[in-house]
């Protein structure tokens, strides 16, 4: 993973976007953000943080509050969340970090920061209606479990994706 190269320099507050916080909090799900008192219960209970210390809910919440728009939306690890909801369950201030993260991911996707596997998966669903690529091996496996043959009915899935505007999301440019 590429480290933020500006780590050694102080962050210039004047270069940040103080409106970013209110933009995030416009979403009903994310309104708890300001109540965060940075106790770190979310980070302490996060299974992802244990493996990828870069993914740190306490830090992310603070970064949003400070207005570090570009840094927050462009970092790849906001997509690492495994949706275990530990942060939300244990938070003493009902901040609901999981919801905030969803808002951030939506914003990131709209601004072109969606990771390419995610975009590929969306396309996969549009084409086949299922998450995993359909191949012979899968078909054999299903047969051995006496499961019916998969039909490729992707019309509904495609329509849903189009309605949600997910088909327009572009993957992050490889730099």
């Amino acid at each position, binding site marked *: 993973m590429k480290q933020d190269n500006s780590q050694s320099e102080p962050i210039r507050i004047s270069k940040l976007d103080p409106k970013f916080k209110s933009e995030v909090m416009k979403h009903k799900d994310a309104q708890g953000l300001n*109540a965060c*008192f*940075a*106790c*770190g*219960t*979310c*980070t*302490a*209970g*996060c299974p992802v*943080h*244990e493996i990828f*210390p870069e993914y*740190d809910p*306490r830090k992310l919440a603070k970064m949003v509050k400070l207005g570090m728009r570009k840094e927050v939306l462009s970092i790849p690890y906001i997509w690492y969340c495994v949706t275990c909801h*530990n942060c939300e369950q*244990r938070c*003493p*201030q*009902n901040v609901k970090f999981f919801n905030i993260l969803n808002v951030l991911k939506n914003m990131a996707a709209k601004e072109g920061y969606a990771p390419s596997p995610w975009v590929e998966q969306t396309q996969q669903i549009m084409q086949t209606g299922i998450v995993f690529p359909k191949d012979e091996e899968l078909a054999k496996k299903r047969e051995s479990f006496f499961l019916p043959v998969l039909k490729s009915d992707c019309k509904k899935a495609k329509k849903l994706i189009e309605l949600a505007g997910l088909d327009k999301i572009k993957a992050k440019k490889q730099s």
Partner: protein
Amino acid sequence: MNSKKEKRIGIFICHCGKNIAGGLNIESLVESSRQIQGVVYVIDNKFSCSEDGQVAIQKAIQNQKLDRVIIAACDPALHLMTFQRCGKKAGIEPGFVDLIDIRKWTMHGSPHRVDPEQAFEKSKKLIELAVKRMRLKRLIPLVEVKAEQSVLVIGGGVAGLEAGLDLADKGYRVYIVERLPTIGGKMALLYKVFPTNDCAPCILAPKTAYANIHPNINLLTNSEVKSVEGYIGNFDIKVIQNPRYIDAKMCTGCGECIEKCPSRVIDNVYSAGMGERKAIYIPYDQAIPKKAIIDAEHCLYLRSGACSLCEKVCPTDAIDFEQRTRTIKLKVGAIIVATGFDEYNPTEKSEYGYGRYDNVITQFQLARLLDIDGPTKGKLLRPNDGREPKSIVMIQCVGSRDENTNAYCSNICCMYALKHAQMIREMVLPDTEIYICYIDMRTTGKGFEEYYRKTRELGINFIRGRPSDIIEETDTRNLILKVEDPDIGRLLKIETDLVVLSCATIPSSGTRQLSQILQINLDENGFYKEVHPKLRPVETNVRGIYICGAAQGPKDIPDSIVQARAAASFLDKELREAKIKLPEYIVKAIKLN
């Protein structure tokens, strides 16, 4: 005053600087108030409570020949008395001066604040209603009645004792009602107290011992208030005293009965579940009164007629199995409520495993373990295997500052965690590593910051983070917790022998029932509610009933003492003349009883 004659009502609308004027159209409010029937004079004032404002009201009363006055301004709890005094100077009875709160609709920070149009409508309506009420008002004559020179203090902890002793020294007859068999409350069980680290029983004993022998104090231990009737000056109280099964006059506290008693019980009150006692017991060495008591639930004789060894060995024949609950009737002039607090039971926070893991305890339990007069005689051992812990983790804010349990800060937990850390390091286990996981360290009292520094100098580790959960290792029964330390930006995984939870301070059990008996209000957290959080901190909605100590909100000992003295002083002001003026209808009601 001729009641048929139309009243001459004057209305004074206060700007309160910008607090009201900034939130609604005062001119329109003045105009609309002029239209109300019975109103002869309306004017607005920049600050009604200021000297100029009060002079303006008095002048208007004289010039306009007003006989009733309504001030539309702030909370009556704050300023009604100011304006009643102001009216009285101009010859208007206090009952004919009314203050209605329109500021709550407009002021910044008010929970009732609404937009200017709504604020206007609500204020207009309030003024209309106040005028209607004022037009119907008759003068209620005040009648002077005798005020009893006696006081009921509910709760024999440090706050109740302080208030009781203060009043007893002033000459009042004081009844201290305590639910437990001994006075001294929670403080007696704390061993040491911050920030001086002196021994709690030692500095409490002068109060408990003095209360025990004070000629003006009656101690009613093992007792609860059953009913309260009447008004300030004349409250009729019924107290239920539960049987001790010991003749307290005969018992010398020698303890021979305890030695012989075969029934062992886990002591959940005085040892916080960390030790045992017998079915017949004396709570602790410095207990007052130092008399034995029989726990009827576990006494073999009282349960099944077996045993009665205690009766056989008692050298003074003090055992009395025939004792029954008795009702004591008291007549008092006023009541002080000092029922204190309980420690929050953290079982609900299942992620910390309290109740499931033996080696997770609370700070109150730790205080009992550290006490040389406690269940382990001051030895700090792991509950599950009796081994000395090599490391201890304390977790702050368990059940406090937590929207899912208690949203408020419990005020004392930072300090008692520091105290216990100091004690363990200096007196019990100097080589044991201690980690305190905290969110914010709050040490704001006199001498408290120095205390925090001293704890740091002793080498206690402070980690600014809150663990998410605790896992127990099945074979070693050690506890594993993870916490992020932002100082180094890394996740710490701590394997420890003992975890101590700094649990919230909550109202003592029975607070709600007592509030119903007394008809006094509770706040949103279940503590007794004061009339005004800043200006009237010891009065309740019932005149003659005052509150102090942790029953009013989480509080340390210095603050409890201050508040107890305040309550005693206020009570003395009300009763010292031995007579009191009450509205006629109340006096009639008392006499009917």
